[in-house]
């Protein structure tokens, strides 16, 4: 078997040019960018945990807020914890049904009409409206007439959560395969029944996850509540009337205080708030994870 002589010798080693070096430098820069982001995040979390942990305790979470901000090692954030929970819960109850219904309209009933596309576009735009505007809005439309209350705060936070829930729910509804809907129609179900009994349950995991993330966002918001609940220090169980307070509002109030005691309480509230947001975020991930694994 004659083999013709090889007359081209090849060199397949790395070309000794700038090219691969540049590409590798680019990769390094990308990693550096990521590090640039981790570092401050790490600092913030470290500070919150270290400064907050020293003051947090069961007592801290339930003790009343001292009216006089100066003294240290006194009191806690009880009213604020309560306020955060109550007001955020009320906001969730207001925003979730409306948000899911709107998502259902956009995805199931709306079709490709101009109105539907406009609503979707505007819901997107609404996610970018600053939260302070929501506070001013409710102030102008409600507080002026009915006074400060937890309810007003819930309205404001609800307005904030609404577009987030609409967008995330709509994405989830879009993922439900048409085959499921068609099977249900073929059995003679009406559109409402199809949506409520087949589509919604199929998308439920993702929708709940989106809701949890919206709740985490709302719980941490300060600006919308500043103008609607009129931060006070007394506890107020009646969400529907009278001023109230939340963890976020208290952190804001304490942040600029020169007193060590007030600052310490602020850090304790910050740790509580971050913990709440963190737990909700993890819950949201777990729900999505379980939803994608459960058999349909």
């Amino acid at each position, binding site marked *: 078997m004659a083999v013709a002589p090889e007359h081209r010798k090849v060199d397949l080693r790395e070309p000794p040019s700038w090219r691969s070096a540049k590409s590798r430098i680019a990769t390094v820069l990308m990693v550096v960018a990521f590090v640039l982001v981790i570092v401050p995040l790490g600092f913030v979390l470290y500070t919150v945990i270290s400064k907050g942990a020293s003051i947090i305790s069961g007592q801290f979470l339930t003790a009343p807020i001292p009216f006089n901000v100066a003294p240290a090692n006194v009191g806690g954030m009880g009213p604020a914890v309560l306020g955060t929970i109550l007001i955020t819960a009320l906001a969730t109850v207001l925003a979730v049904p409306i948000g899911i219904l709107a998502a259902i309209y956009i995805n199931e009933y709306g079709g490709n009409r101009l109105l539907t596309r406009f609503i979707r576009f505007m819901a997107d735009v609404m996610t970018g409206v600053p*939260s302070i505007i929501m506070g001013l*809005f409710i102030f102008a439309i409600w507080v002026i007439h009915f006074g400060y209350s937890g309810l007003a705060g819930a309205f404001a936070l609800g307005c904030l959560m609404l577009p987030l829930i609409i967008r995330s729910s709509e994405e989830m509804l879009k993922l439900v395969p048409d085959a499921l809907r068609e099977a249900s129609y073929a059995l003679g179900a*009406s559109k409402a029944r199809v*949506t409520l009994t087949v589509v919604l349950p199929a998308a439920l995991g993702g929708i709940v996850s989106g809701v949890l993330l919206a709740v985490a966002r709302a719980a941490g918001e*300060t600006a919308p509540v500043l103008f609607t609940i009129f931060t006070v220090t007394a506890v107020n169980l009646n969400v529907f009337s009278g001023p109230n307070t939340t963890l976020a509002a208290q952190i*804001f109030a304490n942040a600029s205080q020169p007193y060590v005691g007030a600052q310490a309480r602020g850090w304790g509230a910050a740790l509580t708030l971050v913990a709440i947001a963190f737990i909700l*975020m993890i819950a949201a991930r777990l729900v999505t994870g379980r939803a994608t694994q459960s058999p349909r």
Partner: protein
Amino acid sequence: MTSHSARADSAGIAGSARALAERRPLGDRVFQALALAAGLLVLAILVLILVSTTQQSTTWFGKEGITGIFSTTWDPAHNKFGALTFIYGTAITAVIAVILAVPVSVAIALLLTEVVPYRWARPIVYVIDLLAVVPSVVWGLWGVQVFAPWVLPHVYAPVARALKGVPVLGNVFGPSTSGAPSGPAFFTAGLILAFMITPIVTSLSREVIATVPTIDKEGAYALGATRLEMIRGVVWPHSQGGIVGAVLLGLGRAMGETIAAALVIGSSTQITSHLLSPGYSMPAVIANQFGEAFGEFRSALLGIGVLLFLLTIIVNVLARAVVARNVQRTRGA
């Protein structure tokens, strides 16, 4: 067969035909109406926001007029409410935030889509999500109590000294005529805002970059391109438009971020190009001074809110439109 059953048959057929012709059940129509109402509520809220806040600020608009609104004189004691300083502050901190955040966010987006193997992508995304979940007020708290006091002696002061007398940079980052560098300042606010908008710019950039067709990327690699060359030749032209949209979105977000800015911007009504000086922004002044504002003062703050609303709406509409057009173009091609 018998006439009786024949009649019954025809009645049955007619009956079922009538059933087919029946209108949809009431429950179905009500449900659809409710869903539509929910959708329209979104539009209604946006309109109401504009209407109600404008209504409450007519005093200010009326008294100051166009020139008054955009004047730099902000003097509550003498009922002078010109908003230009705050508009400046909002614009400048947002621009700083975008300049700092966009290269970093796009780099991370590229890292996630082009470099990192799939298994490592999830933890990186988790970290970015963590960044997003930290509430604005906590960033502000950290900023005003830890970062600002630290950055002044360790970064600002040395930089200011080093740039003394340098032509352009000295004006911006050097020692200034209006006072020494301050911890709470335009730049500090811009920096913290940059941290806060990174997650959303990264996420949107990722979405945009992911729409680049794999086959185009393979085409570049098949020509013997390095990864950087492929990114510059294929990914960048495809995602340019979308990334512009992401930048605009980040800009809108930075303009509206209230609490973090309110705490670290320094609360000083001045317009200066010296970025290490304290300043003020629209959401910050509203947040800080609303509690003690009445009458025309309050009307002015609400009016500033109206301006902020319009500004962010415009930026957000632009951003979404740009992204939509880019996605359409890629899919069409």
